[in-house]
């Protein structure tokens, strides 16, 4: 055989191999589609690469002039179609997809249409708002065939099929949580308080007064300081799907200073110059429909398929998509005047962290700074200047010049477009997914862009608004809210003078992994939602020692039972590799500091992990067997038993004097105390808990404005009784974690 012929044959082989490979591409390869015929997925979907979706071609939907401020509001949960991607993309699609993306959303008030996000609610401080939430989703919604509901995780389970490996096909449970609100637990949207379109109720269901079976009436006192709240779905084990589908909206609390009117005494931009930005990432398919990966046959382009399908066939550890959606529109633009604007921002993604800055859309040069004036729970004392410089990917809580928001964190910001007429500015993002263990975003990653501001509107009037660069205080002056009551001193990273925590809790964040090393579930203090040790149905399940049963009949065992009026320090040691935004209901709290623990150079894990593991006594508990299935596993002594709870009695103080049932943290601390970043030094309800760090919160079960020393343990200063009802929760706001056990019930006590 001649050499030429040999080379020709080799070339033909390579060509054939390349052709097969090309057609195996999940983003539209013919062979991929053909090979999917054996896969059992509800709806085969071909992912639409976000990099091919044109950016900045549709205007940002806003709620200016449409916000609902009634004292009684009906909010429906509705299925509908909405143009999310560019209009032109839908125009080329067949029916029914050409009518838009199937979503679920809130219909707020009587005369508005449903939308994703729902229309913003504007409440006045001191004036209660009553809302009737109605679950009007269809009994067989189209989206349910796209978003596969996993029945093997501990979830709402309206049809009592928990454990089934089949996709759920029943009515959709929903319940609404007003995120960041001081509210009675009966109206807090407890995970077990869900209700379905056909009138089924979870064990935590409450309503202000009897109403339709598919509804619940909640009553919010609105006593807290003016701030940016948001409401979203919170049903047990279903939140990731319901929020992903569009069930989220803003809820502003206004007061006599922050009125939202142009003549507000804070001189903050208002009217057209006050704009909500609800930022999320999504994956779409080539029909313009939402894609939530449920198998290798239905891939998203950022996530993989479920990693432990033998246990959780459809649950993925974090959802990431390659399209950024703001106010329900992909990569929108906003035309602005050359003046100052106020933006109320929430990262409403399931799992994506956002680290943002402004850059000139043409040159890429660094744009104007972002002035952060408020956090989750209200205004900062003074504005914080965020230059938004290009930075290296971060793996620790070092200071950043960028606006860094984990899921559910909010930022109230001012952007100053003066002198920039004719410019276009891109809101950029550079956070790794997952954060921080994921790879840095590629230069071409479409999620490096969030949206665009085009400074092209003529100046309609002179800009006399508050000028953040002047550094004038936002609180403490005449016609301003008093300065923040300091539970922690953000400068020193220590509890504030006079603050005397009555209890310190040391809690561990732990991730259980399956045999292939893929996340199986994430746990707060190694304790599942129910607070019992799972014996896989063999011997009876045992409550975690030191826990108490809830009084509402939900079958939950609570370990966090702080006294109302008391102040506590909660220290979270994160033994996982990713940051978890920890959210505590009912109160706004403050971040004291973060401090690294020693890392074992051989394993890369904190040395604490081995010490922690050594305390576990071994035994037979539910877990993943080596073949990947779920059942009774014999754990040897010295091995962490996922879901066992802490290794020792929760209620017995450890060598640090801390509750929680864990070995003391202090011998493992290494490195300096890192105070909060300047823009974390205010009221927070959600804080990033960094891996390999102890993250310390100071929490007081009293209204924000209560002065230090102004409340005693056992004294209730709320205008309602927070010690009754189904209770509150503390959880990770990565929705995929929250849905799979990274949530614990808690209740203040008298």
């Amino acid at each position, binding site marked *: 055989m001649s050499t030429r012929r*040999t080379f020709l044959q080799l070339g033909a082989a390579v060509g054939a191999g390349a052709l097969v490979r090309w057609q195996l591409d*999940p983003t539209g390869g013919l062979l991929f589609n053909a090979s999917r015929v054996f896969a059992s997925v509800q709806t085969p979907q071909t992912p639409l690469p976000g990099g091919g979706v044109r950016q900045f071609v549709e205007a940002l939907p806003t709620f200016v002039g449409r916000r609902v401020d009634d004292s009684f509001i009906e909010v429906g949960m509705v299925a509908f179609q909405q143009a999310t991607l560019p209009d032109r993309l839908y125009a080329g699609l067949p029916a029914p997809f050409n009518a838009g993306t199937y979503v679920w959303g809130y219909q707020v008030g009587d005369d508005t249409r449903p939308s994703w996000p729902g229309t913003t609610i504007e409440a006045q401080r001191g004036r209660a708002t009553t809302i009737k939430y109605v679950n009007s989703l269809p009994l067989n919604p189209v989206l349910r065939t796209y978003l596969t509901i996993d029945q093997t995780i501990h979830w709402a389970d309206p049809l009592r099929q928990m454990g089934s490996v089949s996709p759920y096909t029943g009515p959709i449970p929903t319940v609404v949580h007003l995120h960041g609100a001081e509210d009675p637990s009966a109206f807090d949207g407890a995970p077990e308080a869900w209700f379905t379109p056909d009138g089924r109720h979870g064990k935590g269901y409450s309503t202000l007064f009897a109403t339709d079976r598919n509804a619940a009436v909640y009553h919010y006192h609105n006593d807290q300081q003016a701030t940016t709240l948001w409401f979203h779905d919170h049903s047990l084990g279903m939140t990731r799907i319901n929020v992903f589908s569009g069930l989220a909206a803003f809820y502003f609390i206004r007061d006599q200073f922050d009125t939202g009117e142009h003549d507000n005494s804070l001189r903050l931009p208002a009217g057209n110059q006050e704009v909500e930005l609800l930022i999320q990432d999504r994956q779409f398919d080539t029909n313009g429909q939402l894609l939530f990966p449920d198998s290798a046959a239905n891939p998203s382009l950022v996530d993989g398929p479920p990693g432990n399908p033998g246990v959780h066939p459809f649950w993925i550890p974090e959802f990431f998509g390659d399209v950024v959606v703001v106010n329900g529109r992909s990569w929108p633009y906003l035309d602005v005047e050359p003046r100052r604007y106020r933006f109320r921002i929430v990262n409403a993604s399931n799992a994506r962290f956002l680290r943002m800055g402004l850059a000139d859309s043409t040159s890429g040069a660094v744009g104007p700074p972002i002035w952060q004036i408020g956090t989750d729970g209200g205004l900062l004392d003074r504005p914080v200047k965020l230059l938004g410089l290009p930075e290296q990917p971060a793996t620790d809580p070092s200071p950043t010049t960028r606006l860094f928001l984990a899921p559910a964190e909010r930022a109230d910001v001012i952007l100053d477009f003066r002198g920039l007429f004719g410019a276009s500015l891109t809101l950029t993002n550079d956070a790794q997914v997952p954060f921080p*263990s994921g790879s840095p975003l590629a230069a071409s990653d479409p999620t490096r862009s969030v949206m665009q501001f085009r400074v092209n509107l003529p100046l309609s009037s002179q800009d006399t608004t508050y000028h953040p660069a002047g550094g004038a205080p936002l609180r403490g002056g005449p016609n301003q809210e008093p300065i923040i009551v300091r539970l922690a001193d953000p400068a020193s990273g220590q509890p504030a003078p006079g603050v005397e925590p009555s209890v310190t809790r040391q809690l561990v964040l732990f991730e259980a992994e399956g045999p292939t090393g893929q996340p199986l579930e994430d746990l707060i203090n190694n304790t599942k939602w129910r607070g019992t040790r799972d014996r896989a149905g063999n011997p009876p399940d045992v409550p975690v020692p030191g826990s108490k049963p809830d009084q509402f009949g939900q079958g939950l065992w609570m370990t966090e039972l702080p006294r109302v009026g008391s102040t506590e320090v909660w220290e979270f040691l994160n033994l996982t590799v990713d940051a978890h935004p920890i959210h505590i209901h009912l109160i706004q709290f403050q971040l004291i500091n973060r401090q690294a623990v020693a890392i074992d150079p051989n394993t890369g894990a904190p040395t604490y992990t081995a010490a922690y593991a050594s305390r576990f006594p071994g035994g037979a508990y539910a877990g993943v067997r080596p073949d990947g299935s779920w059942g009774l596993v014999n754990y040897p002594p010295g091995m962490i038993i996922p879901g066992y709870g802490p290794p020792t009695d929760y209620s017995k103080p450890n060598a640090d004097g801390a509750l929680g049932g864990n070995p003391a943290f202090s011998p493992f601390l290494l490195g300096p105390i890192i105070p909060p970043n300047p823009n974390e030094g205010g009221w927070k309800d959600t804080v990033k808990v960094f891996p390999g760090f102890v993250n310390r919160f100071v929490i007081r079960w009293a209204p924000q404005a209560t002065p230090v020393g102004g409340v005693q343990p056992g004294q209730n200063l709320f205008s309602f009784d927070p010690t009754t009802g189904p209770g509150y929760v503390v959880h990770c706001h990565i929705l995929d974690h929250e849905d799979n056990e990274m949530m614990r019930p808690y209740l203040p006590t008298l």
Partner: protein
Amino acid sequence: MTHTANPGAARIESNDRVRGGTLRSVEVGPARARVSPLDGGQTLRLALLLALPVIGVEQLVHTDRPTLAALPLYQALHWLSDTLLALPLAAVAVWGGQRLATRLRLGERTPPAIVGRACLIALLFALVLVPGTALHDAADRLTHVHVLFPTHSHVPLPSRAAPDGVTTLARFVTHALSDGFVGQVVGLPLMILMLAWEGRKPRPEDGAAPAKKEA
């Protein structure tokens, strides 16, 4: 082209260069033919029989069972395409291994010689799979293969100091090399069997003292 002290070898080289791998040739003579009994067709055949199982093992090692089970047809086609893409590398290994064996004056019919040849081929294949891994990764990126695998490779806590380029490269090479050798667990025995089989085939030169050792 005949400037070496070993004209025979030089003639083979020249044959090789001029005619492209036509190592067995009437001009070369029976003795040479026994030393380098390979033609292009045989190289390709051996390369395919080497690449198929080795690439298959690599794919099995890197794919967990659920992922394999989710899209079996996809996995089979992926195996086929990767094997075809890796064929030139396998051919280089077969051709280079045989040449090296000849240089080392290994025979082709005795069991030790066959094993030696197979070892050389397997070793070379493991080595060329290192750059092959980089090419494979590039192909994976271009065709979005990552989306079919759980991406939450929850590796140990990210180092607080980013690794430098040399460390990254060293890690890659070590990993690719160890993978390459794992694949030879099936590649080597198969190559031994195949060489033994090929060696048993009658050829025109047979009869010219097959057992005769190289001088």
